[in-house]
């Protein structure tokens, strides 16, 4: 019935209120019982049905719950409570857009309800609808101007809405008010620095500086205050004062790059300008004297010096690092190798060091013998140096010398494994890494690398067994625990392994695990809308919001999403070719899932005394059937569209979008993808073949309206003119790959093969990598080339990568 709660008899009203209290206390079973008590007398009471539905939804009876809530709303469509309850459930199911709609309905009937306003404000922020959040929070502040969470929340929402001025106004109006609860010392400090940041964002640096002085007595984040001082002074062009401020900061942390760069800027020095080089090096030198223990200052001269200056600086750093035995020396200077002169100079330098030590046991300018380990670290560096340049044989020789000189040092084995990986001997890499980790089985870092190398040779079961060695013993289900701990690198690598093995179903399962992790990451921010505001850690809160807005830009997400989309496209293509993929059943006889790795899952649960066997998510659909049987193109589209919205600056996004839209015959979107790619990189190797394929599709697709083809063809002609699919394929392996893929898509395997087999030739040396040649191999097999052609390619590839076992 459409009677509201207040129209029920007193007894039932009291029961209803207690039901709501039970919800707040998360006592869902009891709440359910109480709801049923009311419904006994009033079986059609709309609002009670809604509340009962809410309890059911929280007791794993979601479908029933939603049904009841909908019934409740049908009976009483104006009930604020019923809409509120539905909104709550949608929100806990992370259906934020739907939740917002419910809350908006709830507000229609009860526009001044504080709870509803608070909750929907958080939802608006979650969905980045800041203007609406501002509206709600203004109401809340008007209702209670002395509750800090309300006006602080409003300030942050103004901030995210770009109105720093309004945010400042709100804070100024309320910070000295009779706040309940009053802000404590830490919170006042945080608020002051937040307000100062707003003043800075609002553009008035002098005002910010004045404010900074004002607030100092109440600041506890002293480093934060000093950072602001230095930055603001620099922005206000008060270089001398800023320099002192940055020096003050360097006293606290001489490894901080922002402090060093800031200090340099104060000296009017552009670190990237060659003319300033001597002055820059002099300043760095002075700083080094002040802060002799700073690693960063030790490395910095190499970044900003050239010619003889560079050699001097490099020699100083090298001797320090070689004597100390710092494994990351090469990794740290690797960035310099982009400058060919510097790379060569470093090689020459370390070779010279090695020769000096070998011949005389000391450096030419020292009076004492160096420890024997110095030669080890010289060889260790040089191995990485030659590996960088692709001279894997020489690199191996050097690292093996290093190993012989000190067989118990583990680091050289890791480099050897990496060299073998680069050289195409993945099994050798795996075996070397296995040896390394066995020297220190308690070191998870070594085991982690080993697991990765196992996955690279598709040893998925062994990799899993090994991973489990480090999973928490208390975890009720160890494989689920791996997923719960959000190890996306592992999920992606497993996905790649299954994909290589042709098990598209399992590949998709793992890619979706990784995608799910990022969905969780984005969702994580929700609680902080209230928590951070309550804690008054507002700078941190805004930082969290800003990062969360970009959470899907993470490379691990992009990898998973793109790989999954490509899998879906492959499924669709195979279906269309009459060769549909069938999920692969795999026999698994031992399941080391639970404690001690011995008990079967079912037994473990029964032992725990629970009647039902819980099925964990990881156990469901082991073959990935659900993914295989989905609407493949629709799934690919979802992923491609999401990438277009979050990763538009990545060329690969548009290459993928092209493939999806083309198969779905959305030719305007295909053109859009081509143009987007062109805007990023007009020389991208995939462009010629994309243009050709779109043209061909327009020519052959009779179901697409002819009048629509006209503007598409015109735009293509205007933007690209006459295009040959083999453009650039004469000298660029990337162009060969792009052209070959497209030729295969258009059914021309022979032409693809003819191009592909040329890639081991000398003219393709620029940008040719092992992985690209492996891709060539894969495409060649796909092209239907005969055995002898493939074998000839393999032999030719081996002349380029003599140590490779993968061809």
């Amino acid at each position: 019935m459409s009677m509201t709660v207040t129209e029920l008899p007193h007894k039932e009203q009291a029961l209803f209120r207690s039901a709501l209290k039970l919800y707040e206390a998360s006592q869902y079973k009891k709440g359910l019982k109480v709801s049923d008590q009311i419904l006994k007398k009033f079986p059609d009471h709309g609002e009670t049905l809604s509340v009962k539905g809410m309890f059911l939804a929280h007791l794993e009876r979601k479908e029933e719950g939603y049904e009841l809530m909908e019934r409740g709303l049908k009976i009483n469509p104006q009930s604020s409570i019923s809409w509120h309850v539905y909104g709550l459930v949608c929100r806990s199911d992370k259906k934020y857009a739907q939740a917002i709609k419910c809350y908006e309905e709830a507000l229609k009937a009860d526009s001044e309800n504080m709870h509803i306003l608070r909750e929907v404000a958080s939802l608006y922020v979650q969905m980045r609808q800041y203007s609406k959040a501002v509206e709600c929070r203004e109401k809340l502040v008007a209702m209670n101007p002395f509750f800090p969470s309300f006006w602080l929340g409003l300030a942050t929402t103004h901030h995210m809405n770009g109105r720093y001025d309004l945010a400042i106004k709100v804070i100024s109006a309320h910070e000295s008010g009779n706040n309940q609860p009053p802000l404590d010392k830490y919170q006042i400090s945080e608020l002051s620095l937040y307000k100062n940041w707003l003043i800075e964002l609002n553009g008035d640096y002098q005002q910010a500086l004045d404010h900074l002085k004002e607030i100092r007595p109440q600041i506890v984040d002293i480093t934060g205050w000093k950072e602001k001082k230095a930055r603001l002074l620099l922005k206000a062009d008060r270089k001398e004062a800023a320099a002192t401020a940055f020096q003050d900061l360097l006293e606290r942390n001489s490894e901080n790059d922002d402090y060093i760069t800031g200090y340099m800027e104060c000296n009017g020095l552009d670190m990237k300008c060659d003319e300033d080089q001597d002055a820059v090096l002099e300043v760095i030198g002075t700083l080094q004297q002040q802060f002799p223990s700073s690693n960063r200052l030790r490395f910095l001269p190499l970044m900003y010096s050239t010619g003889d200056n560079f050699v001097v600086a490099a020699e100083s750093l090298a001797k320090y690092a070689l004597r100390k035995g710092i494994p990351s020396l090469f990794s740290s200077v690797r960035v310099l190798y982009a400058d060919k002169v510097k790379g060569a100079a470093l090689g020459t330098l370390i070779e010279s060091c090695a020769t000096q030590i070998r011949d005389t046991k000391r450096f030419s300018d020292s009076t004492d013998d160096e420890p024997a380990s110095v030669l080890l670290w010289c060889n260790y560096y040089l191995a990485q140096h030659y590996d960088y340049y692709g001279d894997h044989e020489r690199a191996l020789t050097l690292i093996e010398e290093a190993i012989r000189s000190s067989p118990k040092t583990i680091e050289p084995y890791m480099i050897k494994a990496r060299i073998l990986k680069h050289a195409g001997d993945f099994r050798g890499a795996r075996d070397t890494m296995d040896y390394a980790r066995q020297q220190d089985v308690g070191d998870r870092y070594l085991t982690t690398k080993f697991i990765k190398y196992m996955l690279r040779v598709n040893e998925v079961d062994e990799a899993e067994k090994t991973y489990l060695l480090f999973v928490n013993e208390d975890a009720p289900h160890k494989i689920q625990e791996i997923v719960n701990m959000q190890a996306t690198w592992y999920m992606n690598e497993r996905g790649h392994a299954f994909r290589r093995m042709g098990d598209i179903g399992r590949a998709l399962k793992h890619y979706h695990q990784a995608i799910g992790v990022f969905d969780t990451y984005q969702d994580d921010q929700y609680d902080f809308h209230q928590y951070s505001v309550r804690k008054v850690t507002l700078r941190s809160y805004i930082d969290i919001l800003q990062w969360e807005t970009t959470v899907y830009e993470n490379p691990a997400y992009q990898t998973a999403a793109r790989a999954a989309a490509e899998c879906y496209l492959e499924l669709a293509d195979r279906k269309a070719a009459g060769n549909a993929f069938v999920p692969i059943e795999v026999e698994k006889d031992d399941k080391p899932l639970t404690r001690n790795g011995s008990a079967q899952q079912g037994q473990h649960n029964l032992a725990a005394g629970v009647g039902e066997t819980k099925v964990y998510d990881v156990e469901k659909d082991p073959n990935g059937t659900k993914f295989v049987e989905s609407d493949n193109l629709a799934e690919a589209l979802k992923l491609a569209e999401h990438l277009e919205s979050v990763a538009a600056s990545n060329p690969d996004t548009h290459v993928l979008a092209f493939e999806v839209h083309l198969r779905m015959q959305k030719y305007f979107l295909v053109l859009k993808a081509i143009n987007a790619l062109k805007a990023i990189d007009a020389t991208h190797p995939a462009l010629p073949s994309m243009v050709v394929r779109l043209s061909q599709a327009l020519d052959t697709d009779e179901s697409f309206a002819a009048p629509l083809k006209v503007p598409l063809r015109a735009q293509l002609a205007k933007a690209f003119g006459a295009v040959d699919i083999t453009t650039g394929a004469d000298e660029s392996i990337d162009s060969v790959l792009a052209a070959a893929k497209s030729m295969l898509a258009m059914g021309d395997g022979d032409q693809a093969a003819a191009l592909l087999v040329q890639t081991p030739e000398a003219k393709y040396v620029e940008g040719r990598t092992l992985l690209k040649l492996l891709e060539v191999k894969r495409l060649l097999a796909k092209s239907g080339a005969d055995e002898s052609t493939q074998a000839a390619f393999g032999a030719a590839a081996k002349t380029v990568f003599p140590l490779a076992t993968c061809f």
Partner: protein
Amino acid sequence: MITIRQAEARDAVGMQACNLTNLPENYQLKYYLYHLATWPELSFVATTNDRVVGYVLGKMNDDDPTTPLDGHITSLSVLRSYRRLGLAERLMTQAQRSMAEVFGAHCVSLHVRVSNVAAFSLYKNTLKFDIKDTEKKYYGDGEDAYAMKKDIREMYLSEMDSLDF
């Protein structure tokens, strides 16, 4: 080239990755965000090209409101490939100073596996922690932990900044 700075939200995924690579005690991302949202000044990262190669995740122990606040190290780790640079020591120093200055902590405490000789040496010899206790079966795999503690009151630099600028 490595830089050391206060941890930000964008570092959380990298801290988690570093932790998963190195240590058996792992946490969900939200736990890292919770630290950054509650004690933003107590976590630091060592990064190179925006990749987290080392981190310290710090917090305050506010379990018992009657005792002075103690700082606590939830987690500390540096990738093996970046050892011998003193990163752990530098990260810890930053975190400890912040605990003293920002939150007025008198002590900082942490747990370390009794078998972890390298870490124990860092805390005992380099950073001057003392063993307070041995906690039996502290870790998930049953290993014992040393509960270590250090007085950090002298790390509070009570000098007042000059406001003459």
